[in-house]
């Protein structure tokens, strides 16, 4: 397997391969080490972290639909301070890039969060302006480009780590949003977060979720996510992390051909806990078969 070069680079950080695990689907990185050596991944992304501890949403939190999964976790997390204090417990011993996903309700919280995380040991910060599951803020900053501009610019100005901005597919204009974030200083773009969706329990005549709306992920969203990644890659000059329904290595190659520098695997880990590694190995095999020495040969070819 030494014949192919899978390395890639996001915001100046070298990654041994383009496989990242997505925020909120991979805990703080260790839960899946019972299945494989997580150090083999290019990077892992933490659960969304906020300045203060968050209890997350009440009521049902996940609901399976055909081809996907709707979740309403609501950013439950121990808070950035606890995360940093217990860093050893959460991420100690993990020997790959760690991306901290940063959530917030207000501009101030985002800024404060970025300041604190800048002092942590994580390798990158992913600014999450796309969570559909919190009442205030969250995705609100990710809908209109003008709102995003302000938060990205201000957070960037205090952030001492490479900063990825994670976009919402619910944005009014995904290309304009990406361009705006680039202009505001983002070092990289990741997309997509979940789609605002809902389910109804027809026998109880109630919405499945307390918040009524929640976030759809999984293979169902893949063709739309792929289109958005393609549109964004054709328009920005910073690297892009593509995600949304990636379940197989073929899916991953599609995103790379659409222009993604790296790809991120979310819900697929629930379907198959070894999905990220299966994808990594599938990509290697494809490259050998197709005589692709370096992913740059096919990246953005579409």
């Amino acid at each position, binding site marked *: 397997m030494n014949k192919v070069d899978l390395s890639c680079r996001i915001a100046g950080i070298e990654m041994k391969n383009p496989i990242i695990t997505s925020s909120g*689907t991979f805990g703080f990185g260790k839960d899946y080490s019972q299945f494989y050596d997580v150090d083999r991944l290019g990077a892992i992304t933490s659960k969304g972290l906020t300045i203060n501890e968050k209890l997350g949403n009440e009521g049902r*939190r996940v609901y399976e639909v055909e081809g996907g999964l709707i979740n309403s976790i609501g950013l439950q997390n121990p808070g950035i301070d606890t995360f940093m204090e217990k860093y050893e417990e959460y991420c100690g011993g993990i020997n790959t890039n760690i991306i901290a996903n940063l959530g917030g309700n207000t501009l101030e919280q985002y800024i404060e969060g970025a300041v604190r995380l800048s002092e942590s040991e994580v390798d990158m910060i992913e600014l999450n302006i796309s969570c559909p599951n919190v009442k205030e803020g969250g995705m609100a900053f990710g809908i209109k480009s003008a709102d995003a501009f302000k938060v990205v610019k201000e957070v960037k100005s205090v952030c001492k780590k490479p900063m990825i901005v994670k976009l919402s597919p619910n944005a009014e204009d995904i290309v304009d949003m990406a361009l705006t974030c680039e202009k505001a200083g983002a070092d990289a773009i990741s997309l997509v977060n979940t789609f605002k969706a809902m389910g109804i329990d027809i026998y109880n005549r109630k919405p499945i979720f307390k918040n009524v709306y929640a976030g759809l992920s999984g293979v169902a969203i893949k063709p739309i996510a792929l289109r958005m990644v393609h549109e964004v890659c054709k328009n920005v000059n910073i690297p892009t992390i593509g995600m949304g329904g990636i379940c197989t290595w073929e899916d991953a190659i599609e995103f790379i051909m659409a222009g993604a520098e790296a790809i991120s695997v979310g819900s697929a*880990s629930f379907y*198959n*806990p*070894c999905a990220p590694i299966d994808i990594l190995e599938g990509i290697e095999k494809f490259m050998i078969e197709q005589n692709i020495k370096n992913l740059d040969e096919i990246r953005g070819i579409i």
Partner: protein
Amino acid sequence: MNNYKSALIKENRNVVDNIYSMKLEGDFKGKSGQFYMIKPQKGNTMLPRPISIHSIDEDGISFLYMAKGKGTKEFSKLSAGDTIEMFGPLGNGFDVDEIEKIEGKIAVVTGGIGIAPANQLIKELKEKKIDLFCGFKAVDYSVEIVEKNVNSKKISTETGEMGEKGYITDHLPVENYDLVITCGPGIMMKKVISECRKNNVKSLVLMENYMACGVGACLACVCETTWGRKRVCQEGPVFSGEELIWHE
């Protein structure tokens, strides 16, 4: 390593109504109160479902499950020779040593399919015989395989078709016990806990919740405890009645 693996079904038998028993042969790990995440290799659901260890020994493992929603209905259509994908054992499970240290009498109270994990627990409680209370909708199941290890058993059904009529909690003299262990529908467990609290009786509860990952990564399955929102799949599924906080 908790490998993700596939296993051939040895038997998938309809016990009664929508209750099925699935047997797998091979070398499986786990103890009472722990569970596996399982799904059919071919099927229309993609998320695995958590199912408790109903019985485990050197020869293999068995699950007792109720075909109630999409996922478990797909399980029920499988036959011997079909493949399931699974990983586990997961969760804390019962601490049998601690339970056996209890001085005094123990009741195990199950509602419906809650009998599934109780079976393995009772098998493991070698030093201690328990009193078994089982509630069902209309017909009982699986009690016969459990009962050889118990002091006494009481069965109730909502319809009165079998055993006493009514809810099992109506027939449970909590005050006679030093520990009550319960698995079943939330509403029943809530009742049991509140009775235990009133009578200052310790309790252990096997919680259920909707899961996605089963390994602690997604925070789908949390329940409220006195020490915060805890993951049923990781800090649970076994909690003490004292630490649980029930919302409606």
